[in-house]
């Protein structure tokens, strides 16, 4: 289940996609992005966190499985779609895999732009599509035993409100 990938493209297409077991440091990622491009005026970020309760049951730990190779490809495509809709100067997605516990960070999406409207919209768009398109699966350990988390209808709706996504 161990996997690490890293893409960084130069210039206008700057982006990074990483799937990793280890935790991430948001400040360090923000600093790298800021110092790399003084045109950046606005950075929107999202961090997904393991909650201690899901569907009414307490969650002790959670294991994240993914599809190596396709994960990175799907996320890179999602970022490409965001770039077609908004001004994106740089974008980063880190998704953790393996075993996590409540209050642990799961996923990080950072989008940098000149102005904040683009940064917020692109960050939320990437997160909405990631939840429905990127091949990750969560299994929770609860007092009632282990269970695979079911996909949420609200997540499909969240992705649908952005309109159809075209294949690049």
């Amino acid at each position, binding site marked *: 289940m161990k996997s690490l990938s890293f893409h960084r493209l130069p210039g206008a297409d700057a982006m990074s996609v990483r799937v990793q077991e280890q935790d991430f440091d948001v400040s360090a990622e923000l600093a790298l992005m800021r110092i790399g491009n003084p045109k950046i005026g606005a950075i929107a970020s999202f961090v997904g966190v393991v909650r201690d309760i899901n569907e009414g049951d307490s969650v002790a730990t959670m294991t*994240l499985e993914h*599809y190596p190779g396709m994960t990175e490809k799907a996320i890179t495509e999602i970022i490409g779609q965001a770039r077609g809709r908004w001004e994106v100067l740089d974008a980063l997605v880190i998704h953790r895999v393996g075993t996590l516990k409540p209050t642990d960070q799961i996923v990080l999406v950072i989008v940098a732009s000149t102005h904040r409207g683009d940064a917020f919209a692109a960050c939320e768009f990437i997160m909405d599509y990631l939840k429905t398109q990127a*091949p*990750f*699966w969560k299994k929770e350990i609860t007092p009632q035993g282990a269970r695979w988390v079911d*996909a*949420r209808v609200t*997540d499909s709706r969240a992705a649908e409100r952005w309109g159809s996504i075209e294949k690049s």
Partner: protein
Amino acid sequence: MITLLYFARLREALGTGREELALPSGINTLGALRDHLSKRGDAWAREMADGRNLRAAVNQDVAAADTPIKDGDEIAFFPPVTGG
């Protein structure tokens, strides 16, 4: 040969995450392959049944039932995704 991958609940139910298979003659779409696998019976019949909410990818791109498949392809079956 094609490479078949199974993830998450599906991997556990089928008891395998990966197999190599000679592409059966006459099977040239994703939908046809799913039908073919469902005929293995037991967990295969249950998990690959038409009513199951199953997703699939051909060569790491999300694919539909009418997506063509050919020798050498990497084909994955999995439940709806739940990351993030």
